[in-house]
């Protein structure tokens, strides 16, 4: 969007991505999804320009990290379950999210203290442990960033 960066293509990527369908093996969205108007639309566009079986990488602050609230451009505060819609959606919701993904990996990164104590390791061991952490612990043992490795299903 800004000519000050190293962009090869300048455009308002929050609306559409100026590429043909199934153009890329990997689409990377690092610290941008929390800023777009419409997350469904953005994930729909990433899905469109990625090849079938391709990879979409998303990194965004966890809603308990101070970074989620530092930038006034952040519209959304997300958790490690925020993209379940796209991988595990009930039928009636495909109206909102026609793009289908498979969650290959979800990883929560924590502050150094929690990492040193092994809590980050435990939380990332299973979905059930991560859910327990999200529900009961995450405002004390806070998250930092969440990383997704999503596989495009077409």
């Amino acid at each position, binding site marked *: 969007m800004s000519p000050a960066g190293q962009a090869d293509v300048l455009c308002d990527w929050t609306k559409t991505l100026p590429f043909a369908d199934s153009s890329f093996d990997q689409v990377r969205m690092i610290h941008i999804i929390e800023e777009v108007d419409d997350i469904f639309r953005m994930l729909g566009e990433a899905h469109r320009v990625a090849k079938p079986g391709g990879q979409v990488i998303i990194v965004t602050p966890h809603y308990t990290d101070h970074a989620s609230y530092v930038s006034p451009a952040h519209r959304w505060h*997300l958790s490690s379950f925020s993209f379940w819609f796209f991988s595990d959606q009930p039928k009636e919701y495909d109206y909102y999210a026609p793009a289908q993904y498979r969650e290959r990996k979800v990883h929560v990164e924590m502050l150094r203290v929690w990492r040193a104590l092994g809590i980050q390791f435990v939380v990332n061991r299973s979905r059930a442990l991560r859910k327990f952490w999200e*529900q009961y612990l995450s405002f004390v043992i806070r998250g930092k960033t969440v990383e997704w490795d999503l596989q495009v299903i077409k």
Partner: protein
Amino acid sequence: MPRILDVGCGPTKFPGSIGLDMNPNTAADVLCNLDEGGVPFRDNAFDQVRAEHVIEHVADIIGTMEEFHRVTRAGGTIFLATPHYTDYSSFRDPTHRWHLNTYSFLYFYPGGMHGRDMWYTKVRVKEVRNYVSLLRLWRALGFEFLVNHSKMFRQFWEHYLSFVIRGKLMEFTFEVIK
């Protein structure tokens, strides 16, 4: 027969109500987008407006409450259910725009915030019920009972405890004042 409007009815519409949703794959009787033109009914058309898991999605809470108020008759009720901002479900849905607490609708009460009426809206409602449920562990330990049966404990919980003893679902019933 009470006239009930179920806003954002989804696949399970409230029995006996008129369902409204923006998604055609639902039990909706009327399809519309609240953010574009409000609620397509005349003034005072309903005895109750229900909006479960809706208010956290809308672009403009004040504008939407004004619409719910407009289509509800004087003395009718507005029922809202929405996640407390300390529940992880508040942050699980990437279309949740707002993260709310049990005081978020003081804005619409007479003498609502800091003992004075708020000036961005003229809409006024009276709180009939304001219930917050907690996770199983906290309920079993009696915290849900305390939070809902003591106004003082409710405030202490919101101010001091709610990031540890986290909230889950909030249910509000408001009586419409006209």
